[in-house]
């Protein structure tokens, strides 16, 4: 070995040793220089497994707000404490979710928990938080049973299914008024598992109170091979409004059969799920147009509200795509949490809980199409609101509530295939 190369070798070793020493020193010294302990926020979402894409988007949306706050000097009332985000992976499974929630609380010592998308998972993760007395913020699960448990530490910002389904009926009332037409007879068609029957029950309880008559109450077996007799039954029963709750496959087949059998309702309001799935319009093309669907969010909403536009622009700049309802709700929860921490000025669970209870957000602050955020005694946000969207020219557009609508609805008397 030549002298020059030997020298070079020692040089490299020296650099590595110095780098290690500096690195270790940096690791030890810097944290002790930080003025205040970080606020530890645990988010429990499905970041691997079948729902991983959704879970990661939620973490991304949440991170966006956290980074913004940290870069702007952290939580001021806590002396500039930074927010540290700790991610727990539920894999979309209630048991795994509970174990992760437990780990974050007992080992990572988080101050707040946020999660967990699927209602069944949220049920277990929030139970763990309840047991340890840690505030749990739920941006995104819609099963009505969740806030009915009388939990002390559970706070849900999203409107739940019952409210969202009632919006379908409210929408029909508003359109009737605006059009000066009478839509009194409702036919409800729904898949016969828990979701379909539950949402049908809400309509059956609520619509008659507003003067509607349920003329057809039709449950059908999900994943049908053929839906001719269902559609013929619809044709044989005179009605003004069709309200439908179907998953994707049945939604596609129903619309196909509508076309074959020459059926078209005067007013057709779908209940989310199958009808708003991208494959619905992807599969049916133009035949899918003019269906109304209840929704929680729509990409075009930024056109009608500044807070949503700001959120979406920031998200788009960082992740090169538009937010959907799940991400937007995650983002909203993060902005709320920052405000709550500012107001509590303490990291004690009780103080954070008090700040959550005291929340009273007005409409312009929320980056969702809601009237605001205010929790009832069960921790349910009572100012949440769904929207109604319509498939116009291949794009979902927000058309109700009229205050946040981005375009006027089209009430087509003829089917799109006519």
């Amino acid at each position: 070995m030549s002298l020059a190369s030997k020298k070079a070798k020692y040089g490299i070793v020296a650099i590595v040793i110095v780098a290690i020493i500096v690195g270790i020193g940096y690791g030890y010294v810097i944290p002790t220089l930080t003025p205040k302990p970080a606020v530890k926020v645990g988010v429990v979402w499905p970041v691997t497994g079948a729902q991983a894409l959704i879970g990661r988007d939620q973490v991304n949306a949440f991170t966006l707000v956290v980074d913004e706050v940290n870069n702007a000097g952290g939580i001021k009332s806590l002396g500039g404490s930074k927010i540290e985000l700790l991610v727990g992976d539920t894999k979309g499974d209630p048991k795994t979710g509970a174990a992760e929630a437990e780990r974050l609380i007992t080992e990572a010592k988080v101050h707040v928990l946020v999660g967990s998308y699927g209602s069944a998972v949220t049920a277990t993760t929030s139970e763990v938080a309840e047991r340890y007395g840690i505030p749990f913020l739920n941006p995104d699960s819609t099963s009505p049973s969740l806030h009915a448990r009388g939990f002390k530490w559970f706070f849900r910002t999203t409107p739940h299914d019952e409210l969202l389904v009632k919006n379908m009926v409210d929408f029909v009332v508003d359109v009737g008024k605006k059009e000066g037409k009478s839509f009194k007879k409702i036919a409800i068609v729904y898949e016969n598992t828990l979701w379909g029957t539950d949402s049908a029950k809400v309509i059956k309880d609520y619509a008659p109170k507003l003067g509607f008559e349920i003329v057809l109450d039709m449950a059908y077996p999900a994943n049908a091979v053929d839906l001719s007799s269902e559609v013929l039954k619809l044709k044989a029963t005179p009605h003004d409004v069709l309200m439908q709750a179907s998953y994707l496959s049945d939604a596609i087949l129903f619309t196909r059969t509508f076309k074959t059998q020459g059926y078209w309702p005067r007013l057709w309001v779908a209940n989310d799920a199958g009808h708003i799935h991208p494959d619905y319009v992807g599969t049916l093309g133009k035949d899918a147009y003019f269906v109304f669907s209840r929704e929680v969010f729509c990409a075009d909403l930024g056109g009608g509200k500044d807070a949503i536009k700001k959120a979406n622009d920031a998200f788009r700049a960082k992740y090169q795509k538009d937010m959907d309802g799940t991400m937007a709700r995650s983002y909203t929860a993060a902005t709320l949490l920052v405000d709550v921490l500012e107001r509590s000025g303490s990291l004690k669970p009780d103080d954070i809980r008090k700040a959550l209870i005291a929340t009273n957000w007005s409409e312009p602050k929320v980056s969702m199409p809601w009237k605001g955020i205010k929790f009832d005694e069960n921790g349910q946000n009572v100012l949440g609101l769904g929207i109604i969207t319509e498939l116009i020219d291949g794009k979902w557009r927000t058309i109700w509530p009229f205050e946040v609508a981005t375009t006027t609805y089209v009430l087509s008397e003829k089917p799109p295939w006519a």
Partner: protein
Amino acid sequence: MAQVIISSILLGGIYALVAVGFNLIYGVMDVINCAQADMMMIAMYVTYWSFALYGVHPLLAIFINIPLFFVAGFFAQKLIIDRLLGAPQFIQAVATIGMGYVIQNVALLVWKEDYRMILNPYTDSTLRFAGINLSVPLLVSYIGSLAVVAALYVFLKKTDLGVAIRATSESREAAALMGINVKRVYAIVFGVGVACAGIAGVFTSTFYYTYPMVGTAFLLKMFVVVVVGGCGDVLASVAGGLTIGLAEGIGAFLLGPSWKEAIYQSVFLLVLALRPQGIFGGGK
């Protein structure tokens, strides 16, 4: 009501088409091919992709599918089914269910869980007369299904190979003693049965959407149709298909769709109780 009956008959024809290949395989080989519906799913994808990528009219995909699925069935018999012939039916069923799962999951891996539908003027067309609406692809599928059954019937009755197949179906040993190459007959029967799934896939994809789990929507119906019509009898598949189609369609219309499954399962139980060999079954 006329519309309900006609729609139900068309539906029955589809059930018959899906079941006929399964019934042939069972009739001759005594093998319950639980992967039949998943093979149909692959056929639907072949039809879809020939249309989507190369613009092949969905009905013309029959000429791709018949040879393709015959060959696939022929070799599947040689490689897998042949080893199971002596085994208890339970083992065979588990093995073919396993095949079905593999097929489903490969489809899931390759094509994702997206729903795909062939949209062109043909799949969109509807005939209207005397107040009755007939979906053209459904009508053509119905006619196609009857044609397939008729062709199979003639093939089994009139050709030498058909006679050999029927002989094998009656007694494997006797047929072997008469100089029939039983293994070859089995491979051909399995090939023909799978080719039937290939044809069923072509027709089904013209009025139904394609996705990896589509087979499961048809599998249970297939079993019921075969048992109601008569196990192992090709013509009986038509009787079974029509019975179930009509029971389901008319029952759903009169009593409500929630009763659909209950109605056809009741018909199934009734047939089992009164005529366990099936409506047309010869008591094999």
